[in-house]
């Protein structure tokens, strides 16, 4: 018991005497939330769509008017007229157009005959985000407009309004749980593993090992202090980051309690895992070199920036064994989906199970001698 208090007390006193760690650990994810949240969050505007009209009939005219109305209403695209398909294709290839709409020669005639004619859309799908946005809007227009006759309205009365349906509209909100997890991860990495390796290198550990402290006391002391540090950093990030992401987390005490529980389980799992990983490592460089790799491997495969549902099979497998996945899922359920704590409970339990296994492994791997 005394050993735990000694080790944890030392770590925490050092932490409060030199609070630069808090600053670094909170600032990094905040910047990431701000930049990444806005890089992916915006609506696409100013794309260029070519129109090849080979019909020139009343329905082609209607379609072109609708296009013009949609382009002025949403700002998603502007239209450019092209004489033939080949020219439009060349423009897409040259990067001057993002898409082209092909109105076939017999469009109006076939609509009057009650058939369902096809309007072609050429897409530059080398840019996924733009082509997805354009194909959505254009496909919707073709189905409504190329269908059997409807009375023609006066010019300019047609407008398209944007209805927010895509999850990436509130991308900064979507990203918040991931960056909160990242703040905890960074705190464990910089405030735990790296300081500990430096201590080892400086011979501070030798000093502890010549006292009657047990392995478990040493490991528990580090886990306790590491978790407290991670929760302080995580808590501070959650307060600032939720404001940045437009979340009213701070007004909901029950949600805060749930978030604190997920934070505790996450901090516990990350700390014990890092000790199990580095218990036998003496090289100070290794955690520094591994930091970037671990960050990419764990953060991006956790569903923090993109839904796991979009992953290929092997990556889903990685997401499944990645403890960060459960942290992100837990935070997202509580903060973004406003779910009850019961939804996040499985995540908390899984993280605690991982943490307990890692604690046992870390203690066994830890060496009492040099």
């Amino acid at each position, binding site marked *: 018991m005394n050993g735990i208090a000694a080790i944890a007390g030392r770590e925490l006193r050092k932490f409060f005497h030199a609070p630069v760690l808090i600053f670094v650990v909170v600032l990094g994810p905040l910047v990431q939330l701000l930049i990444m949240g806005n890089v992916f969050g915006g609506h696409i505007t100013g794309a260029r769509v070519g129109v090849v009209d080979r019909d020139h009939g009343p329905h082609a005219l209607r379609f072109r008017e609708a296009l013009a109305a949609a382009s002025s209403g949403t700002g998603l695209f502007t239209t450019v007229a092209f004489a033939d398909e080949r020219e439009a294709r060349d423009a897409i290839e040259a990067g001057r157009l993002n898409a082209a709409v092909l109105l076939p020669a017999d469009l109006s005639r076939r609509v009057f005959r009650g058939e369902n004619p096809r309007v072609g859309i050429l897409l530059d799908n080398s840019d996924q985000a733009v082509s997805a946005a354009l194909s959505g809007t254009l496909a919707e227009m073709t189905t409504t407009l190329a269908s059997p006759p409807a009375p023609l309205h006066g010019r300019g009365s047609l407008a398209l309004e944007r209805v927010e349906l895509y999850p990436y509209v509130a991308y900064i909100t979507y990203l918040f749980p991931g960056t909160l997890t990242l703040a905890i991860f960074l705190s464990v990495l910089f405030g735990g593993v790296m300081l500990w390796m430096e201590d080892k290198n400086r011979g501070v550990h030798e000093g502890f090992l010549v006292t009657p402290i047990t392995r478990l006391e040493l490991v528990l002391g580090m886990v306790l202090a590491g978790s407290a540090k991670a929760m302080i950093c995580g808590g501070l990030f959650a307060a600032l980051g939720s404001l940045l992401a437009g979340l009213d987390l701070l007004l909901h005490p029950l949600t805060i309690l749930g978030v604190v529980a997920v934070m505790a389980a996450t901090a516990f799992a990350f700390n014990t895992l890092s000790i199990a990983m580095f218990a036998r490592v003496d090289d100070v460089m290794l955690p520094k070199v591994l930091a970037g790799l671990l960050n990419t491997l764990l953060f991006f495969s956790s569903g923090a920036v993109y839904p796991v549902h979009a992953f290929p099979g092997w990556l889903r497998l990685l997401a499944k064994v990645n403890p960060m996945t459960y942290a992100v899922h837990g935070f997202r359920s509580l903060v973004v989906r406003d779910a009850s704590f019961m939804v996040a409970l499985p995540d908390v339990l899984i993280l605690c199970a991982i943490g307990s296994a890692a604690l046992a492994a870390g203690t066994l791997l830890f060496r009492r*001698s040099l």
Partner: protein
Amino acid sequence: MMTTLIPITRGRVRINGHDLAKRPDDVRRSIGVLPQAMTSDLDLTVEENMLVYAQLYGIGRADRERRIGELLEAVELTERRGAMTRALSGGMRRRLEIARGLIHEPKVFFMDEPTTGLDPVSRARVWELLRRINAERGITLLITTHHMEEADFLCGRVAIIDQGRLAALDTPASLKRGVGEGATLDDVFVRYAGHDLEGGRP
């Protein structure tokens, strides 16, 4: 090995009556260790550095207060009690580490190069301090050093280890007598371990 950091390979070690292989924690409570590197925490105050070790040895709150005060007095750091260790000079840090090693009142104090990297004034002060600890507290000091003047000044018995083997063991005075009139401990060292410099065994 004697500080319990490396497992014993052969033979037996008894310190303060405890068998190291059987009761390592009793040995640990009987010894103090001053590593060669400065290992006091720069981001803690002088007092906090002492406190961590008091807790590691499980010393109760009342005893803790008394001993920290008394030891800081002994190493002349009382006024620096609340100062950050970062602000201390090398000599002061070394004295703090010595005080830290005495917090659990050990019987044997292992010191690895206690004055390496210190200026002559600080060194003299540490030597004076060590002599007092030895005399007043009756603590055995086991010092490893490359500094023969230090060994001569501090030690009752000097062992010279050459390539892992005990080459000589005696009081400084009789070791010096064995070499010749007016010899220093440096001369003794050269005599027993100097073959490397001369390129062959004497």
